[in-house]
C-alpha cells in the first residue's frame, strides 16, 4: 500500500471511468475511484475499486502520485463526485415536511428540502454536511467562514 512503490498505471476510459493496469500488466476496465474520507480528508486515501466492487489499490496521498496519474485520477474523481460546497444560505423557509433552503454553492444557486435536524450532520468541530431529501450532500467546510446572515439562518435550524 506504500506510495513509494507506485507501479500501476491509470488511464481514463470513454465513459468517465478508469482503466487500472497493475504491475503485472493486468487491465481492469471500468474501475472507479472512491474517496474513503470524502469530508475529513478528501485528498488522501483514495481507493480504486474494480467494476465488481473489489478494491484494487489504495492511494494514500493524491499528491504523491506522478503528475500525469494524478491528473487522470483527479478528473475521474471530479466526474463522479457531486458535493456542492455551500457558500451562503440565502433563505430558509418552512415547508410541509421540512425546510426549504435556498443556497449559493460553488456550483451555483439552488433550492433543496431538508427534513429535519438529523439531516445536518456535524463532522469535526466546524464542518457540516447537509443531506437533502434526495440524498444529495452539501458541504459547509467551516461554519465560521459563512457570512453573518447565513450563520444566523443556520443557527435557527441547527
Amino acid at each position, binding site marked *: 500500500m506504500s506510495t513509494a512503490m507506485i507501479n500501476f498505471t491509470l488511464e481514463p476510459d470513454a465513459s468517465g471511468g478508469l482503466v487500472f493496469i497493475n504491475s503485472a500488466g493486468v487491465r481492469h476496465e471500468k474501475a472507479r475511484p472512491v474517496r474513503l474520507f470524502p469530508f475529513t480528508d478528501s485528498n488522501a486515501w483514495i481507493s480504486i475499486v474494480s467494476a465488481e*466492487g473489489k478494491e484494487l489499490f489504495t492511494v494514500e496521498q493524491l499528491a504523491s502520485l506522478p503528475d500525469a496519474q494524478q491528473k487522470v485520477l483527479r478528473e475521474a474523481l471530479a466526474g463522479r463526485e457531486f458535493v456542492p460546497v455551500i457558500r451562503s444560505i440565502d433563505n430558509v423557509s418552512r415547508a410541509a415536511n421540512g425546510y426549504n433552503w435556498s443556497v449559493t454553492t460553488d456550483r451555483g444557486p439552488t433550492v433543496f428540502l431538508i427534513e429535519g435536524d438529523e439531516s445536518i450532520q456535524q463532522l469535526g468541530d466546524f464542518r457540516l454536511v447537509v443531506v437533502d431529501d434526495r440524498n444529495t450532500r452539501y458541504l459547509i467546510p467551516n461554519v465560521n467562514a459563512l457570512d453573518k446572515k447565513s450563520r444566523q439562518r443556520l443557527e435557527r435550524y441547527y
Partner: protein
Amino acid sequence: MIPTPPIDPSEALYQYAESRLGEGERIMAHFETDLDASLHFHSGLIVLTDQRLMHAEQPRDENIRFKSWKLPLIDDLVLEELGATAVLHLIQGGTLVYEWRTTSGSVREADAFLARFKERQQALRLDPAAVSTTGEEADDDEDDEDPFATKGGVRSNPLLRLLFFAKPWYKLMALGFILTVSATAAALMAPWITMSLVDNVLIPLQSEQDRPHVKHIYRFAVNLGGVAFLTWLLNWGKTFTIARLAERVTSRMRRSTYEHLQKLSLTYFNRKRTGDLISRIGTDTDHISLFISVNLIDFVCDVLMFIGIAGVLVSINPILALAALGPAPIIGWMVGRVRGHLRGGFAAASRAWSQMNNVLSDTIPGVRVVKAFAQEQREVERFRTADQHIFDTNDRVNRTWSFFTPMIELLTDMGLITVWAVGAWSVQRGYITVGVLTGFVLYISRLYGRVESMSRFFASAQRAATAAHRVFEILDVEPDMPSNDGSHKVGRLKGEIEFRDVKFRHGARQVIKGVSLTIAPGEMIGLVGASGAGKTTLVNLACRFFDVSEGSILMDGVDLRELDVEDYRRNLGLVLQEPYLFYGTIAENIAYGKPRATKAEILAAAKAAHAHNFILKLADGYDSMVGERGQQLSGGERQRISIARALLIDPAILILDEATSSVDTETEREIQAALDALTNGRTTIAIAHRLGTLRKANRLVVMDDGKISEIGTHEQLMKSSGTYARLHAAMLEVTHV
C-alpha cells in the same frame, strides 16, 4: 425550611455505638440487621471498629442492649442463607457464641460488611501491635468515612449545598450582590424625590402663591429621569451577572453529575431507569438555573427593598409606618401555610415528569416491538396515564395557588386602604404633609407589588430544592466500584487469567458458586452452557464490571482488585452480541478505544475485520454517519465495525459475548473470518450458543448453575457424553428441523 427527619431507630443505635467507642477507636463499617432471633422484625446494628465488633439493639420500651467482642479473639464470622432470611454466625474459641438474623435482601450489605471484617482481621494478624493503639493506618482513610455521613449530606439543605457549586465564582457572586443592593437603593430614590416634588412644587403651585416654583419642575424631572436611568443600568448589570452565575453553577452541576455517573458500576445502571437519569441531569438542573437567575435574585431584591422601605417609613412617621406594614405578618403566616402544601406537590410533579420520561425512553427505542405486537393503543394508554399523573399533581398545586395569589392581592389592597385612611387623618391633623403621604403610598404600593412575587419565591425555592435534591442523590451514590482501587499499573499484559474459587452474589442470589480455572496466555476458551448458567457474569467479573464476592481473579498472577482499572481495561477487547455504535462517523466508531489512531491504522483494522469492503460501498465511505440517527447498517456490518474497534486497540485479552448470535449463518461466516483475525494469539474467552463458532477454541468450558461442570476439547466432551454432548445434540436437532 427542612423538616426534622424522623429519628431512625438504627441511627439512634449508631449514635449509641459511637458513644461507646474507646479512646482512638474508629468505626470502619456497620451492618443493620432487621430481624431478631425469633424472626420478628426488629432492628439491630452490628458495628465493626478497628478494635472490636459491637452489637446494639433496642428491645421494645427498654434500654439499648449492647455487646462487644475483641477482634483478635473472634475466629470467624460466617454468613449462611436460609431461604428468605440469612444468619450470621459469630464463632469464638471454636464455638458459636452469637448469631444474628436478617432478611436476605440485606445479604449484599452483609457481604460487604464481612469483607471489611476480614480485611481488618487480616490487618491485625499482620500487625498485632495495631490493637488498642491509637495509631492511624495509611491504607484506609477514604473508605472509612462515617457511613452515615453521606446520608447526612443528603438531608442537609440542598439549596445550601448549591453554594458549594458556586464557590469558584465568588467574585461574580460578590459583584452580583453589590449590584443588587445598589439597584434596590436606586429604586428607593424615586418616591423620595416625589415627596419633595409634591410639597415644595406642586402644592405651592396649586395655591398660586409662588410662580417661580415652575422652574423647579424641570429640575425634578431631570432628577427623576436620572434615577430611572441609573436603576435601569444597575438592573441590567445585576440580571446579567446573576444569570451568568446561574449558568455556570448549573453547568458545573451537570458536568459533575455526569462525571459521577460514569464512575458508577453497571449495577447502578441496571437498577436505574434511563429516563429518570436523563430528566435529573436535564430538567432538574434547568429548574435550578431558573431559580437562581430569576427567583432567588428577585427575592433578595425584595427583602432588601422591604428592609429599606420599612426603614424609610419608620424614620418619616412611625405611626403611619405601622399601619402600612401591618398586613405583612399576616401575609408571612399565610405563605408559611401554603408552603407546606406546595412542597409535596412539587416533589410529586417532579416524579410524575420522570415517569413520563421513562415511558418515552422505554417505548420510543422499543417501537418495533410495540408495533409488532400491535400494542400502540396500550402504549398510548400508558402515556395517557403518565400524563394524567402530571396533570393531577399540577392541578393539586394550582388549586392551592389559585386561592393564594388573589388572597395576597386582597391583603395588599387592604394595606393600601389603611394607609390612605390613616394618611388622610394625619394630614388633616397636620402631622404630615400631602407630599409625605404621596411618598408613603408610592413606597407601599411598590412594596406590596412585590409581596406576591416574594411569596412565589417559596414555591420556586421548594421546586429548586426538590430538583437539587434529585441531582445530589446521584452525586451521593458512593461508587461501589472504586475506579482506582488498585494502583498497580500493568502496562501490557501477557494475558494469563486465573479464576481462583470465584463466587459472586447478585442481590440475594448466588450466581457464581465457586469457579476455578486457569487460562494460559494466547489460549482460546469457549464458554458454553444453558442461559442463566453464569457465563456472562463470569465474563463481567473478568472485565471487572463487578467485583467478586469471594475468591479472586488473577491477571498475570496479580489480583484484579490490585490493578488500576483503566490501565487494565486497555488490555481488554470486548465484542458484544448487540454491537453498540455511537452517533458519529464509522471512522470515529472504529477509533473509539484509541481516538488518536491514524487513518492508516483505522483502515488496517477495518480490513482485518472484513469491514473495509462494505464501507467502501457507502456513499460517504469512512465518513458515513452511523449510530442512532445515522446510516442504517445490517447487524453483520455493525458487528464487523465493533470487531474492527476491538482490533484497533490490539488487546491482550479478548472477550466475545455471543458475538455471532444475532446474525444469520451467512453473515456469521463473514464475521467468523474477522473474528479469527482478532483471536489470533490473544487470550480469548468466547461465549457462544452456536457451538460451531467455537471450533477454534483450545478448550471448552461447560458451565452449569454457576459452576464448571466439564472442561475439554470438543472430541473429549462428546465422548464423555455429559452436559456438552446434550447441548450439542439439542443444537443439531434444532438446526436440522
